[in-house]
């Protein structure tokens, strides 16, 4: 109650700095043209870095969708991504050894094709999200956070104990996914653009979702669940669908991730990773879809820059994070556009 009682009003009046469409254009064009730039300054490494940033941006986006619009703070987003990554790894591994994935009750062959393994990754992560959601979505707030954390840790330990694929040490992906000869994912620039295209597509789709009737129900449930029930909505179903969508997108990001680093280990799924993802979303600004992308770029970019200066970069980065939260109440998106990100 008191939280609202003394909320300073009139915060809306702060000057608009940058229209959000302009920000979108800048980000989009910047990412599209980056390879040209890195070529000019002969710093091909940045292609790798930004591919990585975009993959994390995709995970953050998937979380930003449910966190910002449905109020679901999921502490297991990294685990969904990890599941996707392992699916690709395991399928490719089986394909390389010519062993079918499952023989009973019916044979499922294996494949290293992106057209099969990546959707499979989404499917698997979506299914995992479905199961977790069925249980966790019955609770609220901190209890929801902790339940998602618990399930994520269970998944984490499942892979820690999966000795066939390296257990805690993780495993390397022998070959990147094949694309029926269409694209050469070993080419860094090709991989970069594939990642970029997927990120852009996910953004557009989620953008549509949040403004649709479905999105309105999610947002309403975030603001006042009791009222939603009284209106006749069962928020659970809508949240479950959103949760599964989010999990599937994170799974796709995982498929990209294992292709990017050609390596996956359970530590990608540890709760600390998930908290990094949450940090990206919050720092970027909740309640809009550009925030998570900005947050991922800011955190990974800062890490790259600062760690280049001193090995003790956490000493600067930590307090910087705190100050950002303290002064940029609405995240980076808020700073850049002058808009309240959290105002639904």
């Amino acid at each position, binding site marked *: 109650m008191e939280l609202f009682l003394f909320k300073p*009003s009139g915060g809306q009046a702060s000057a608009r700095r940058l229209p959000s469409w302009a920000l979108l254009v800048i980000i989009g064009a910047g990412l599209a043209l980056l390879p040209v730039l890195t070529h000019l300054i002969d710093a091909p490494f940045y292609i790798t870095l930004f591919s990585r940033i975009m993959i994390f941006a995709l995970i953050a986006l998937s979380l930003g969708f449910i966190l910002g619009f449905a109020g679901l703070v999921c502490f297991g987003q990294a685990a969904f991504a990890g599941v996707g990554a392992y699916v690709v790894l395991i399928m490719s591994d089986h394909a390389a050894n010519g062993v079918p994935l499952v023989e009973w009750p019916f044979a499922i062959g294996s494949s290293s094709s992106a057209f099969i393994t990546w959707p499979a990754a989404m499917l698997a992560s979506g299914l995992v999200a479905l199961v977790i959601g069925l249980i966790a979505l019955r609770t609220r707030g901190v209890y929801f956070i902790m339940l998602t954390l618990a399930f994520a840790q269970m998944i984490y330990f499942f892979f820690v104990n999966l000795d066939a694929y390296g257990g805690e040490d993780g495993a390397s992906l022998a070959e990147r996914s094949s694309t029926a000869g269409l694209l050469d994912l070993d080419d860094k620039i090709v991989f970069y653009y594939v990642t970029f295209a997927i990120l852009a597509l996910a953004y557009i789709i989620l953008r549509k979702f949040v403004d649709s009737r479905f999105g309105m129900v999610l947002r309403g449930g975030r603001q006042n669940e009791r009222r939603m029930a009284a209106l006749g909505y069962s928020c659970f179903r809508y949240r479950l669908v959103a949760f599964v969508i989010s999990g599937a997108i994170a799974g796709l990001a995982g498929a990209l991730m294992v292709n990017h680093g050609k390596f996956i280990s359970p530590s990608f799924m540890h709760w600390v990773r998930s908290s990094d993802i949450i940090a990206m979303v919050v720092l970027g600004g909740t309640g809009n879809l550009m925030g998570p992308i900005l947050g991922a770029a800011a955190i990974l970019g800062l890490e790259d820059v600062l760690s280049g200066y001193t090995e003790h970069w956490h000493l600067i980065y930590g307090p910087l994070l705190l100050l950002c939260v303290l002064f940029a109440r609405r995240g980076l998106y808020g700073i850049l556009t002058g808009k309240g990100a959290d105002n639904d």
Partner: protein
Amino acid sequence: MLRVEGLESGYGNSRVLFGISLLVDAGEVVTMLGRNGMGKTTTIHTLLGIVPPRAGQVTFQGQAIAGMPPYRICRLGIGLVPEGRHVTTNLSVEENLVATARGPGPWNLAEAYRLFPRLKERRRSMGGQLSGGEQQMLAISRALLTNPSLLILDEATEGLAPLIREEIWQCIRELKQKGQSILIVDKNIDTLAQIADRHYIIEKGRVIWSGTSGQLQSDPELSRRHLSV
């Protein structure tokens, strides 16, 4: 006892109070009247320091208190029954009463239970489990237990059953007889006109009329215009 002069304050960019002045003498019962949203609650919160004052002076028992933190102001002897009750939901009824009680003075637990027997029945219940009206009783008792020299009641009878409401008015009459100073905000103007000594009518953050109960009752036009009664 309490003197407010030229008090101004607001929330964020919006100004709500535009120079409120009022006075409560020892032993006096004074009211603030006015329609919804005119700044009565804001006045109370500002003089208690809950909302920071932007201009003006507040003296309580001769001491300037504007700018002090609320807890220091209240320790000087002000007991508040806040609008909206604000009982502590996760303390039991009895703990709600004991946690902030202060002496010395006539009010203690037994006295409070005598005033509201219903609270005694529910003493082990958590504040948050009480019905709306029970919470209101708790908020009033809680303020009394600080044994204040000035009691401030902000919409203290809201949501109370007529019977209980009448008991509260009776209690205030008694307190007045014992010499307690009281500042009241309430919607039951007729009752207030009988109990209180003087009245201030607040409109849009300004005092637009003040006078005695007699003056208020003799001017029905006043009530109609400013209080829509």
